């Protein structure tokens, strides 16, 4: 048996043969551009759940009928980090696991691009997109020339309030009031909760120093340890609101459809919110870039975009959707949440990455894991 064991170990060591000294460390310089062409064959898209209108008359089915492309629409993204963690080893090798598109947040798209995991996109392959894209989204901070990202849907992070129990909550600072002890939850996202707390203290998250981030994180830490904050959540706060376990939560604007509590209302904090946008990106190793580009262009047609937004109830990046909804007589056309005006979001900030990310993230994770 000992002999067998030794042989086994020798064999496996031989097989493994140390993979080099340094692993990872960003892309190797040349970024490829996704090739256009006529759409055909099979297309695999990874997206968040509930982010598209489903069924026989849904957008995917429509696209399949129109182009003859067979679409494998997989809803396997539950969190930006989780998805990244799952895909990173493959992306590192230039593989995308069969996917030609995924949908991730601004900062994640940038991170992936910097690591060399994404392909560039030619504007000439996306005529509809650049015709109907909202002007405010044409040149964002993280991708000024829209080289690698095309917006999908967006939203705002603010405060959900149970108006029957705590109608006076209007600012993130109110969440620290001891009379709501144990009845308040906050999001576990670094770029949302500490940023909102900083906004409430009068600090601009886009320009804050690492120390200011750490100070906000410390304030939250004290509140967590004292039991003021009940829990840090992903979107489980919707369950707690429905069950009446909490009176207020930091949460996302479009979640109205999953909160079964008619007293719950999304409020723009008095000091401003964070705004975010999820983006379609084409990864390295994407097997069918022509179809991917055709898809992106397809969903930017206003008649298609309006179906998506009507179901999903988040912010559409396409012009003309509001008017089409109004024509359909939908209440959504009047909604501040689905169609926020410039004025409404005047104090809002984007999803900012803190300076000295590792140190700040580590401090935040410590708060999250108690």
């Amino acid at each position, binding site marked *: *048996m000992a002999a*067998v064991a030794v042989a*086994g170990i020798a064999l*496996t*060591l031989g*097989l*493994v043969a*140390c993979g080099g*000294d*340094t*692993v*990872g*460390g*960003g892309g190797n310089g040349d970024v490829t551009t996704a090739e256009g062409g006529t759409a055909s064959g099979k297309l695999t898209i990874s997206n968040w759940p509930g982010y598209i209108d489903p069924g026989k008359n849904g957008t995917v089915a429509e696209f399949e009928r129109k182009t003859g492309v067979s679409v494998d629409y997989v809803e396997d993204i539950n*969190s930006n*980090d*989780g998805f*990244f*963690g799952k895909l*990173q080893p493959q992306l590192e090798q230039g593989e995308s696991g069969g996917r030609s598109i995924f949908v991730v947040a601004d900062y994640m798209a940038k991170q992936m691009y*910097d*690591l060399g995991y994404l392909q560039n996109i030619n504007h000439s392959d996306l005529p509809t997109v650049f015709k109907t894209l909202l002007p405010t989204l044409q040149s964002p901070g993280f991708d000024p020339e829209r080289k690698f990202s095309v917006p999908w849907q967006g939203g705002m992070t603010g405060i959900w309030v149970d108006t029957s129990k705590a109608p006076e909550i209007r600012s993130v600072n109110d969440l620290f009031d001891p009379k709501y002890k*144990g009845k308040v939850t906050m999001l576990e996202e670094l770029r949302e909760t500490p940023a909102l707390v900083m906004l409430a203290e009068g600090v601009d998250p886009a320009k804050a120093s690492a120390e200011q981030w750490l100070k906000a994180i410390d304030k939250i830490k004290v509140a*967590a*340890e004292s*039991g003021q*904050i*009940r*829990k*840090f959540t992903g979107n*489980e706060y919707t*369950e707690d609101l429905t*069950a*009446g*376990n909490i009176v207020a939560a930091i949460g996302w604007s479009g979640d109205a459809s999953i909160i079964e509590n008619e007293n719950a209302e999304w409020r723009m904090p008095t000091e401003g919110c964070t705004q975010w946008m999820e983006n379609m990106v084409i990864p390295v190793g994407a097997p069918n870039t022509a179809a991917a580009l055709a898809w992106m262009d397809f969903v930017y047609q206003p008649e298609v975009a309006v179906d998506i937004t009507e179901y999903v109830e988040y912010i559409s990046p396409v012009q003309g959707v509001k008017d089409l909804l109004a024509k359909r007589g939908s209440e959504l056309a009047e909604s501040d949440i689905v169609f926020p005006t410039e004025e409404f979001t005047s104090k809002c900030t984007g999803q900012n990455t803190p300076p000295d990310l*590792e140190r700040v*993230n*580590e401090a935040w*994770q410590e*708060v*999250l*894991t*108690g």
Partner: protein
Amino acid sequence: MGLKQRLVPYWLLGPGLLWLIVFFLVPMYFMGELALRSGTLTSGFTFDWAWANFPDSLSGHSEQIVRSFFYAGTATVLALLISYPLAYAIAFRAGRFKLVLLFAVIAPFFTTYLIRTIAWKTILSDSSPVVSVLQALALVPPDGRVLATSGAVIAGLTYNFLPFMILPLYANLERLDLRLVEAAKDLYSSSRQAFIKVTLPLTMPGIVAGVLLTFIPAFGDYINALVLGGTQQAMIGNVIQSLYLTQRDYPEAAALSFLMMALILVIVLIYIRFAGTSAFMGEEEDVA
């Protein structure tokens, strides 16, 4: 013993060992190599014999390790107390209904971990009648809650790992010779004594198996803490999740994982020594 005879254990073990070596040891080797690297995802992980990763990760998360031990330990004890009589009943008093009861024990697994735990979250929500009853019984303070507390996490762990305790106990209890127990009752004249002196020792292998199968996975669990816990209930599993997926500090995640495995192995070895190696290693016994 002929050569063919001597080879029997090896080819019985062969497939399993091979599977475990290729699909467990080799990946573990990759992990171990990763634990000795330092750096970040963006700057690259360089292999530089970073042994410091081990003590660093331990000191940073000692609180969660202790907490995990406490939660898993309590849950295991509770599971044992709940499961032993149940397994006994299924083995000896169920007759025709053995299969039905065994199935009932497994059935909750078909609903997936998450839905089960969410169902409990609903049952234990602040405004539910169950919580009101618990408040009336003074098990919960009048304006207190069950969710987002250590109690909820332990209850969740206990519930979710009951089958892991029941099945090995049952498998072992089932072959218990009841006439030995009867004989003991004749000798000791008290059921309690008969139980302690005869039944318990004979069923020790089942208890050992059940305790190990429950404690070990419970220690590394993170879902119960995630769904039923609050801000101060994170277990070591949650920490490793966070290190791996959110902070992407793979070396520290790998180092902490190895430490966790080592810790569990130590606990297991101590426990086995205490419970008797024969109960675990399976030395041949001759039952007269």
